[in-house]
């Protein structure tokens, strides 16, 4: 297993956001993570990516215990994550933003720059390379958030609603980009509310509710699971999917 999260829990001042969640991801997989708002999905990502130290449980990456390691150590080990609200450097250009990621594994400026330019090309940001991050629209910001992480050459990428807020045409492009990233050999865990994304990309889906995994299975099974319909999809979901 590339990633093994064992009974990960996280509490804040008596409030438990994640209560003993398990997740095992094999090299090359695309795993979907869905669940109601506030179910603890982002907090779980924070624990796996080293942005928070779990209150209990363990995070193993490629057999190495990273539970209490820093965010930088996680990135160096090969775990990259995007943020739901893009955490780009607003007054830096697209190139500079991506170079920040590229510097993780490159010390020379020109090497980082060349690598960043390749990533920018791949993520479809070439036309905006010298634009400041704050001037980008939603699709550009979402791409830049992905590009920054990709520049760190992760083996595992955690995408936290990286495709939300896109129109259908933009969404199709973004799904294509995720496929290309997967094609590079990157293992992916995707949090997304857009069921089309989950159904199209994920091979396996885990359902979070109240800080724990309540169901897991293939996407087709999951959307028919009564507990999932009750907790997450809502009663009208099947009706809407049936009559688009």
């Amino acid at each position, binding site marked *: 297993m590339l990633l093994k999260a064992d009974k990960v829990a996280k509490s804040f001042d008596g409030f438990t956001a994640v209560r003993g969640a398990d997740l095992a991801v094999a090299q090359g997989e695309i795993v979907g993570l869905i669940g*109601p708002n*506030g179910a603890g999905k982002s907090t779980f990502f924070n624990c796996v990516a080293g942005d928070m130290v779990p209150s209990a449980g363990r995070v193993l990456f490629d057999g190495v215990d990273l539970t209490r390691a820093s965010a930088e150590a996680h990135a160096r080990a090969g775990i990259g994550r995007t943020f739901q609200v893009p955490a780009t450097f607003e007054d830096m250009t697209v190139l500079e933003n991506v170079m920040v990621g590229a510097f993780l594994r490159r010390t020379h400026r020109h090497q980082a720059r060349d690598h960043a330019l390749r990533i920018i090309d791949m993520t479809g940001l070439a036309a905006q390379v010298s634009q400041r991050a704050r001037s980008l629209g939603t699709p550009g910001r979402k791409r830049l958030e992905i590009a920054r992480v990709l520049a760190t050459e992760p083996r595992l990428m955690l995408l936290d609603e990286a495709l*939300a*807020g896109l129109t259908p*045409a933009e969404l199709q492009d973004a799904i294509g980009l995720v496929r290309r990233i997967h094609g590079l050999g990157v293992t992916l865990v995707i949090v997304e509310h857009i069921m089309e994304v989950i159904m*199209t990309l994920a091979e396996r889906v885990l359902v979070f509710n109240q800080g724990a995994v309540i169901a897991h299975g293939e996407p087709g099974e999951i959307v028919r699971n009564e507990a999932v319909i009750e907790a997450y999809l809502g009663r009208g979901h099947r009706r809407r999917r049936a009559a688009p």
Partner: protein
Amino acid sequence: MTNLRVSNLEVRYGDLIGVADVSLAVEQGSVVALLGSNGSGKTTTLNAIAGLVRPSRGSIEWQGRSIAREPAYQIVAKGLALSPEGWRLFVSQTVEQNLRLGASLLREKTRLHWLFDRVYALFPRLAERRYQLAGTLSGGERQMLALGRAIMSEPRLLMLDEPSLGLAPGVVEALYETLHKLHGEGLTLLLAEQTIPLALDIADYAYVLQTGRTVLEGKAADLESNDQVREIYLGVKSTVVANG
């Protein structure tokens, strides 16, 4: 009766043109949708109506009077409320305090309880978290709070900027059921929404924006099958390739 009329609106951000030429009308009691890809000017149009950005040209009239130069709080007092992009919450205030702020212009304070009940019935999650700071909420919960705060002002025109963004499918369903109900009670709605079937299902009339201009308008039922709308949203008709 036309409640809101926007004519030849232009909004500039320095040298950048956010909206070049947008005209629209909203009849009392109707639901109007703004459609268009990211960067087409939907958010800027809503922000201009709400008084958050100043038009550089054109007019905005509410019930026959210009509101283009009014400060945002005066526009709320006239009965227009916006649930904005990016939520703009007071993160160091509790959920309940944020909601109460939405009702700060309410004359009959006795109605406050009833308003809280309505919002909490719509988003039970907010009721559970009423004494938590808004800054501790998840992304989806923040979206609920921004929507709830707009509803607390008992607007006559409720403007929603991508209300389904970041919400779990079941919550989106509940939200739209509520919007249908509020509309049934006589509330006028103006919404920007990326999920076209949802938008066209609730809307009576829709405007399509492209690069800051209204390029198409019509009854929602007619736009549903319009080729130009399909093109704008879906790009070149892309086939979704099944995984594997």
